[in-house]
C-alpha cells in the first residue's frame, strides 16, 4: 500500500460531495440511537436535536454556495450530477424539512404517539429528495424517489388511531404504487429502446441522462422512446399533483397528519419539478411532444385546481387544491424554460416563495388546537385574529403570498412566470393563468374572511358578552418559526437582491 493509492483515492473520492445527504442519514440514525440511550425525561430534546442538526447541515450547504466551494460535475460514475440548481434544491428541501420538523414537534406533542420515528423518516425522505434533485441517471432517480415515497406512505398514515389517516395512507399507497409502476414502466421502455444495439446512439448505460438524451437526439422518431417519455411524465405528474393525476390530493392531504400534509405540499411537489427540470434536458430531442404535453397538463391543472378549491370548506383540502393550481403555474415555468434562459430561476424563486408561504400557513394551522386536524374547516379560523393577532397576521401574509398579492414574495414569483410566459409567447397559457389567479382570489379571500371579517359578528348584540376566548400560546420557538416565514415572505416581496445575486453570482 503506497501513499499513491491513498492519494488517488482522495483525488477521485466523490463521497465528500454528498456530505449533506450522508449527514442527514447519520442524523436520522443517531436520533434512533438517542432514543435508546437517553433517559425518558430527556426524550423531548430529540426533535430539537433533529432541528439543530438540520440547521447545521443547512448552514454547511449555504456557506458552500456562498463561497462557491461546492463541487460541480458528475459523480459516482454518472449517477449524480452536481450543479447550482441542485444545490438550491438541497437548500429548499432542507428548509422544508426544518419547518416540517417544527410542525411535527408541535403536532406530536399533543398526542401519545411514538415521536422519534417521525423525525427519523422525515430526515431520510429529505436526504432521498436531495439526491433525487441531483440524479443524473434513471436508476438513481427511481431509487431516491422510492425511498422518499415509502417514507411518505408511513408518514401519511402516522396517526394510526384515526381512520381518516389510515384511509389516506391506503389511498396514497395504492395511488403511489400505481404511479411508481407507470414511471418504472416508462423507464424500462426507455432502457429497452436506448440499449438496442441496432439503433444509432445506443449505449450500454442507456439510463444515464446524457446517454439517453444522445440516443433520443439520434432517434427522435423512436416509438418506444416516445411512449417511455409519456409514461415517465405521467409518473412525475402524480408527484406534482398535475391533472389528471391529482385525484389523490384532496383526500390524502385531508387525512394525513398536518406536518405530513405540509411535507407533501412542499417537498414532494418541488421534487417533481426538480425532476421535470432535468427531464427537459433529457427529452429535448422530443420537444415537439414534451412541451405540448406539459402545456395541456398546465392548462387543465390550473383550471381544475382553482375551480375545485372554490367549493371546499375544509382547510387542508383548500390548501391541497390550491397547491394543484400552483403546480400548474410552475408547469408554465418549466415550459418557458425552453426559450427563456432565466426561467429556472423563476421556478426556483416561485418554489421558495411557496415554501415560505406554506410554512407560515401551516404553522398557523398547527396551532389552532384542534384535536383532529383532518376536519379543520374555515369555521375553525373564526376569531383567530382576536385569539392571537400575531397568528392572524401570519396567516394573512402566508395566504396573501399564495394568492400572489404584492408586496409579498408570491407576487414576484407569479410575475416572473408571467413575464417568462409572455417572452415565450405562450399567450393561451397566460390567459388561463390570469383566469386562475382571479378565481383563486375567491377562496383565498374566503380564508381571510373567516379569520378576520367575522371578527365582530356578535358586536351588535349588547347582551351577548363574548366569553373570554382562550389565547394561543406559541412559545419562543413558535414565534421564531412564524416570524422567519413571514419576514422571509415580506422581504422577498420587495427586495430580491439576496436571492437574485445568489443565483446569478
Amino acid at each position, binding site marked *: 500500500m503506497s501513499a499513491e493509492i491513498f492519494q488517488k483515492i482522495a483525488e477521485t473520492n466523490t463521497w465528500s460531495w454528498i456530505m449533506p445527504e450522508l449527514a442527514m442519514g447519520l442524523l436520522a440514525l443517531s436520533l434512533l440511537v438517542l432514543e435508546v440511550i437517553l433517559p425518558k425525561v430527556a426524550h423531548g430534546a430529540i426533535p430539537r436535536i433533529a432541528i439543530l442538526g438540520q440547521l447545521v447541515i443547512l448552514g454547511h450547504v449555504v456557506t458552500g454556495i456562498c463561497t462557491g466551494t461546492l463541487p460541480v460535475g458528475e459523480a459516482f460514475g454518472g449517477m449524480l450530477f452536481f450543479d447550482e440548481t441542485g444545490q438550491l434544491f438541497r437548500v429548499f428541501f432542507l428548509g422544508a424539512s426544518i419547518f416540517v420538523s417544527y410542525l411535527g414537534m408541535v403536532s406530536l406533542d399533543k398526542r401519545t404517539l411514538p415521536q422519534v420515528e417521525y423525525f427519523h423518516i422525515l430526515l431520510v425522505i429529505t436526504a432521498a429528495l436531495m439526491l433525487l434533485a441531483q440524479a443524473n441517471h434513471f436508476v438513481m432517480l427511481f431509487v431516491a424517489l422510492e425511498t422518499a415515497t415509502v417514507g411518505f406512505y408511513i408518514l401519511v398514515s402516522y396517526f394510526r388511531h384515526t381512520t381518516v389517516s389510515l384511509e389516506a395512507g391506503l389511498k396514497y399507497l395504492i395511488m403511489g404504487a400505481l404511479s411508481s409502476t407507470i414511471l418504472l414502466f416508462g423507464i424500462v421502455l426507455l432502457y429497452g429502446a436506448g440499449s438496442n444495439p441496432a439503433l444509432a446512439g445506443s449505449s450500454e448505460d442507456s439510463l444515464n441522462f446524457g446517454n439517453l438524451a444522445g440516443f433520443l437526439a439520434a432517434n427522435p422518431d423512436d416509438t418506444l422512446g416516445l411512449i417511455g417519455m409519456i409514461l415517465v411524465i405521467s409518473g412525475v405528474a402524480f408527484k406534482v399533483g398535475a391533472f389528471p393525476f391529482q385525484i389523490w390530493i384532496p383526500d390524502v392531504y385531508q387525512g394525513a397528519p398536518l406536518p405530513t400534509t405540509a411535507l407533501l405540499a412542499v417537498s414532494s411537489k418541488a421534487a417533481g419539478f426538480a425532476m421535470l427540470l432535468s427531464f427537459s434536458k433529457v427529452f429535448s430531442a422530443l420537444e415537439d411532444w414534451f412541451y405540448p404535453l406539459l402545456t395541456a397538463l398546465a392548462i387543465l391543472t390550473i383550471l381544475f385546481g382553482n375551480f375545485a378549491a372554490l367549493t371546499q370548506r375544509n382547510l387542508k383540502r383548500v390548501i391541497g387544491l390550491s397547491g394543484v393550481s400552483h403546480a400548474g403555474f410552475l408547469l408554465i415555468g418549466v415550459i418557458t424554460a425552453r426559450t427563456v434562459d432565466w426561467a429556472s430561476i423563476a421556478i426556483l424563486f416561485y418554489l421558495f416563495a411557496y415554501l415560505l408561504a406554506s410554512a407560515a400557513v401551516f404553522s398557523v394551522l398547527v396551532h389552532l388546537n384542534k384535536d383532529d386536524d383532518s376536519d379543520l374547516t374555515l369555521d375553525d379560523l373564526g376569531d383567530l385574529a382576536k385569539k392571537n393577532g400575531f397568528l392572524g397576521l401570519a396567516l394573512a401574509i402566508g395566504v396573501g403570498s399564495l394568492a400572489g398579492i404584492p408586496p409579498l414574495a408570491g407576487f414576484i414569483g407569479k410575475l*416572473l412566470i408571467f413575464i417568462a410566459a*409572455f417572452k415565450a409567447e405562450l399567450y393561451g397559457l397566460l390567459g388561463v393563468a390570469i383566469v386562475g389567479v382571479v378565481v383563486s382570489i*375567491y377562496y383565498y*379571500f374566503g380564508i381571510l374572511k373567516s379569520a378576520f*371579517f367575522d371578527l365582530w359578528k356578535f358586536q351588535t348584540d349588547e347582551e351577548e358578552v363574548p366569553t373570554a376566548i382562550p389565547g394561543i400560546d406559541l412559545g419562543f420557538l413558535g414565534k421564531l418559526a412564524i416570524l422567519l416565514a413571514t419576514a422571509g415572505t415580506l422581504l422577498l416581496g420587495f427586495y430580491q437582491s439576496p436571492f437574485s*445575486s445568489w443565483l446569478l453570482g
Partner: protein
Amino acid sequence: MDDFASLVQFSIAVPIVAAFLTLFVKSWGRPAVQIVSVTGFALPVIFALFLWGFYDPSTPGGYAFVSNLDTGLEMIGVGLHLGLNGVSLPLFVMASVVGLAAGLFAAQSKAENLSRYLFCLLIMQGGLMGVFASIDILFFYFFHELALIPTFIMVGIWGGRDRNYAAMKMTIYLTMGAMLSLVGLIAIYVKSGAESFDLITLKAHLAEMPLADSVQKYAFGLLLFGFGILVSLWPLHTWAPLGYGAAPSSAAMLHAGVLKKFGLYGLVQVAIPLLPDGMGYWDNWIVWLALGNILVVGLIAMAQRDLKQMIGYSSVMHMGYAFLGIAAMSVLGVGGVVLMMVAHGLTVALLFMLSTMVHHRTQTFEMSEMGGLAKKAPVLAAFFVCAMMASIGLPGPGLANFWGEISIFLAVYDFRNWLVYAVVAGIVISAIYGLRAIASVFYGEETDEFIESQKEVPVEDMSWAERVPVLILIIVMFFIGFFPKTVTESINDALESEPVYAQVEE
C-alpha cells in the same frame, strides 16, 4: 434638482413606518396612536408642498427629484425608480392632502381597534404616494396593489351594510382589472425589447421603433379594460357604488379620491404615450363607453335614495368626463382631465366625509328619512352645499372642478361637436341629483324619522375636530379654483413634451 429626491422617498416611507409604529404604541393608549398616525399623514403633505415649491416647470418633459434603487430584479429591468413630472406632481400633492384629511377624520372616528384601522389606512397612503412617484411602471403597479389590499381589508372589517359581499365583489373585480393591466404592462415590456420597465427608457426606446400596430392594438386593449375596471368604466363599474357604500368613509375617501385615479393616470402617462396607434384604434370605444358612464350611470345616480350610494354613482359618472377628455387626445383635453382628477379627488373625498358626518347626525343614509338638517347644523350644510356645487361642476366662485370640466368640454367640442350635447345633458343630470340631495337632506320639514332619532342622539353642528379635515380640503380646492394656473402650467408643459398630445394640438 435631485437634492430633494430623498423627500420623495420619505413621503412614501413615512406613512409605512408610521403604520408599524401605530401597532407598537397601541399599549400607550389612544392619544399616542392618534399622534403617530396623524404625523404619518402630515409629513408627506409638508414634503409634497415643499417639492411643489421647488419644482421647476421648465424641466423639459423629464422628471425631477429622480432617484434609483436596485431591489434585486435588475436582471429583468426593474428598479425602484422614483421621480415626479408635471403631471404626477399635482396628483402627488393631492394624494397627500386627501390622505391627511382622511387620516384626521379616521383618527377621531369611533372605529373599533383604531390602531389597526389606522395601520391599514397608513399602508394605503404609503402606496398612494408611491403610485404617483413611480417612474418604473412595475413599481407603479406594485404600489397600486399595496394601496388596494388595505382597502379590501377595511371594507371587510370596518365596513357598513353588506360589507362582506361588497369586499368580495371589489376584490374580484379589481383583481381582474389589475391582472389585465399587469399583462398589458408586461406586453409593452416584452414586445418593446427594451428590457426595462423604466418609463423613460421605454419612451425613448419606443419613440425610435414603435411597436407593430397589432401589438399596440391588443396591448392598449388590455390596458384600457384593465385600467377601465379600476376606474369604473361603464359597464364594469358595478363594484364601485357598492364598495363605496359599504366602505368606512376614510377608506372610501382615499379610494374614490386618489386610488381610482391610478387607472386614468396610467392611461395618460403610460398607455397613450407608449401606444399612440393603439389609442387611435380604441378611441371610439372609449367615447361610447364614456357616454355610458355619463348618461346611464348618471340616470342611475338620479334614482338613488341612499346618500352614500348616490355619491358613489356620481363619482363613477364623473369618470366618464375624464375618459372623454382622454379620447380628445389634446393638451387641452388631457390637461383638463389631470386638473379634474386633482379637483375630483378633493371633492369626492369631501363629499364622502361630509355624508358620514350627516349620517352621524341622522343615523341613516336614506335621503327620504332626512330633512331640515340645515337648521340644526348650518355649518355642515354650508360645507355640503359647497362640495356638491363643486362636484356638479358649477362655475361657482373659484371651484376647481369647473376649470377641469370646461377644458374637457372645449376639447371635446374640437374633437366631435355632437358629444357636447351629451356632456351638457350630463351636467343637467348631475345638477338634478345634486341639488335634490341637498334639498332633501338639509332643507324642507324635519321628517318623523329624523325627529325620532334626535330624541336619542341630539344633533349638534360640526365640532372643530370635524371642521379641520373639511377645511383642509376646501382650502386646497378653492386655491386651485382661484389659481388654476399654479397647477395647469406644469401639467401643460409636461403634456406638450409628449408628441402624442402635442401633435393633435397643431
